[in-house]
């Protein structure tokens, strides 16, 4: 299913509420940019965002735009919707994607039939707007199916 169709059937999905720690991530997503924290002291990228670098404990973290490229680290096809918001979306794919820069994140894989998703498949970020404030990064295969 396309990201647009997925958004339509799941318009009631629970959306994130940005806070002081995560605001820059969601602001960047609105601008269709994927940013994650990078440590100014040791250069380590991490995600989900923390207050201290998980590698060297430095607080000198900077939101840094990343390539948006990665690979499927693991995935699952959801057959049982977690809430009515997702009931017409099943089956859909939740994946852990390993970004080219190293960190993992959770996402939906769109633009491909659920049963065609494979571990190690190269994917790239796409942005799906859900509200004025929230645009969710999702991923699609680099090579169109």
């Amino acid at each position, binding site marked *: 299913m396309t990201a647009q169709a997925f958004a339509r059937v799941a318009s009631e999905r629970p959306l994130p509420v940005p806070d002081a720690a995560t605001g820059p991530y969601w602001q960047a997503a609105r601008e269709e940019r994927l940013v994650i924290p990078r440590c100014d002291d040791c250069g380590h990228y991490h995600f989900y965002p923390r207050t201290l670098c998980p590698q060297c404990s430095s607080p000198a973290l900077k939101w840094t735009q990343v390539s948006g490229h990665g690979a499927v680290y693991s995935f*699952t096809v*959801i057959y*049982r919707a977690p809430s009515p918001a997702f009931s017409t979306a099943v089956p859909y794919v939740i994946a852990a994607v390993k970004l080219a820069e190293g960190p993992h994140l959770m996402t939906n894989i769109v633009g491909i039939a659920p049963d065609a998703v494979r571990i190690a498949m190269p994917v790239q970020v796409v942005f799906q707007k859900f509200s004025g404030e929230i645009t969710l990064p999702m991923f699609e295969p680099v090579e169109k199916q």
Partner: protein
Amino acid sequence: MRESTAAIVGIGESRVGRVTDRSALQLQTDAAQAALADAGLKMADIDGLLTTPVRVEHWNMPCGVVAHHLGVRAKYLSTVDIAGASGCGMIHQAAMAIATGQCTTVLCVAGQNLLSHSTRATAVKSMAEGGSAHPQFEVPYGPLVPSLYALVAQRHMHEYGTTREQMAEVAVTLRHHASLNPNAHKREPITINDVLNSKKIASPLHILDCAIVSDGAAAAIVTSTERARDLKMKPVHLLGQGYGCRHSHIGDTELTTTGAVDAGAAAFKSAGLTPADMDFAQIYDCFTITVIVELEDLGFCKKGEGGAFVAGGRIGIGGELPVTTHGGLLSAGHPGLGGGFFHVIEAVRQLRGEAGERQVQDAKLALVHGNGGVISIHCTLILGGVAA
């Protein structure tokens, strides 16, 4: 083997399954009274209390609510919340409270009417919202707890060739164990094909790969080794323990090696024992894949060999390493955070030689492992039927 300082001297369970006529506090009371009767103690003998949070009611301070309800005048009380590892954690934290002289006899009790309190829809909703997914970076993508563990299973299959049939054997074995447990929730035998053909939830997990939801509570009484000698039941000693936590959410981490590595290594080191010394293992089993990953991480087999380890009847009673002999969360019962506490209760029963049809022969040493979150937080206990 290290010297034991604390022992479990009484155990009890409420009715487990669908118990529509008891509230959470009533179920906990039933379990507590059963444990007191087992130990030959009265409520007035209890001077410490540990419990876990519940999901079906709002208790602003669970240990205070439970202590008051039971009429315990506690010199020490606390709410243990290390998610599914809380059952193991309570036993060790009781031992610490006793060792510091704060109290002498601790009642650990947990459980609730999780099944009959909730409809299927509210149970799924509370699992989705109150579960282990990150509220901003995971929940919007529509995960359920099974989908988070499904990521683990899929990756384990990819890296190590683990099969759905191997995972199914965990469910089949534990159901057989539950069939021998009169207080288990689900007792009808199942086959590998039943698991493989059961309803799809989140690939590769089907519904029989997933824990059930139950009503029920369990309780155990911990006291000093010295005081245990004067009590009526054969004490079961705490010989070692360890904790581990390598992540809080599953989406941002490695999926096939967990904090159980650290918890298990610490527990064996503190006990001065090894996996080969264990006569059986009470492994947390929220999903079939959980058992496979934990057996590897705790050192019962090498990383990647868990699938083969659980196959061919090796984790059944009479097998090389009987696992979760009461039937576990997959079949015996899973009333939320109290679910993993039944693994401890069963270990005590086995080590006393009171497990009836499912008794492990010559059971002298056991490992009990609790896992919380999404293979996130771990607590391992080593229990023994004899003191060092």
